[in-house]
């Protein structure tokens, strides 16, 4: 038995490969975070001090801001995909589920934009 629709057969373009995009995005961001996340935790727990100047000097130095922006992007993406699955699995009231999914997306876009903005602002203002 073919699972393809009659229209799909006639047009004959095959799969758009979009069906597994959520699954694939979750894994891709997971691999990125295995490296970036471990790097971040080691860096932060290894800082000598957490005062204003020390933290800014660390964030603005060398390749750190580049990796931090990548970390924030991967975190927001991975977290958005994960929270989406949790909401879909456990929130059953339709209206609340929709509101929660929208709120989650807004929250994660905010995290990505605000986090990147903060890192870049520090990187461009420290010398």
């Amino acid at each position, binding site marked *: 038995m073919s699972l393809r629709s009659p229209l799909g057969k006639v047009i004959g373009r095959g799969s758009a490969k979009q069906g597994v995009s959520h699954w694939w995005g979750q894994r891709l961001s997971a691999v990125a975070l295995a490296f970036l996340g471990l790097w971040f935790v080691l860096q932060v727990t290894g800082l000598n001090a*957490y005062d*204003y100047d020390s933290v800014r000097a660390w964030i603005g130095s060398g390749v750190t801001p580049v990796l931090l922006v990548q970390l924030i992007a991967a975190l927001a993406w991975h977290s958005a995909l994960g929270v989406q699955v949790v909401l879909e699995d456990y929130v059953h009231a339709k209206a609340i589920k929709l509101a929660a999914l929208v709120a989650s997306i807004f929250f994660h876009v905010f995290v990505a934009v605000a986090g990147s903005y903060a890192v870049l602002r520090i990187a461009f203002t420290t010398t």
Partner: protein
Amino acid sequence: MRQRPLSPHLDVYRFAYTMATSILHRITGVVLSAGLLVLVWWLLAAAGDAEGYAGVAAALGSGPMQVLLAGWVIAFVYHLCNGIRHLIWDLGYGLEKAEARRSARWVVIATVLISLALLYAGFVLRGAP
């Protein structure tokens, strides 16, 4: 319509600790998602002026926040270790029951050891943030 049981039928299974590692992956994931707010709060404070940062640093250095930060470190390490276990499963390895139980034990052992090392480095050696 009759109320029929919905899957997953959690109450018909005998408890196995691989269930605990599974649900803990989701719980730590959600906890870490909430932690994003603290990460952004800290970064925005560092991007602002020194007085504002001092206030945020003092809040992060308070007793309850220190406990939360330690909790986030442990949640991160667990989610990382168990996430690697999931990625290995995705490659098609370690899916037999005995293997899954064994890897669950390794995840717990690795989480305890790595968390202790990180918390020792972050909180004991260097002092609070």
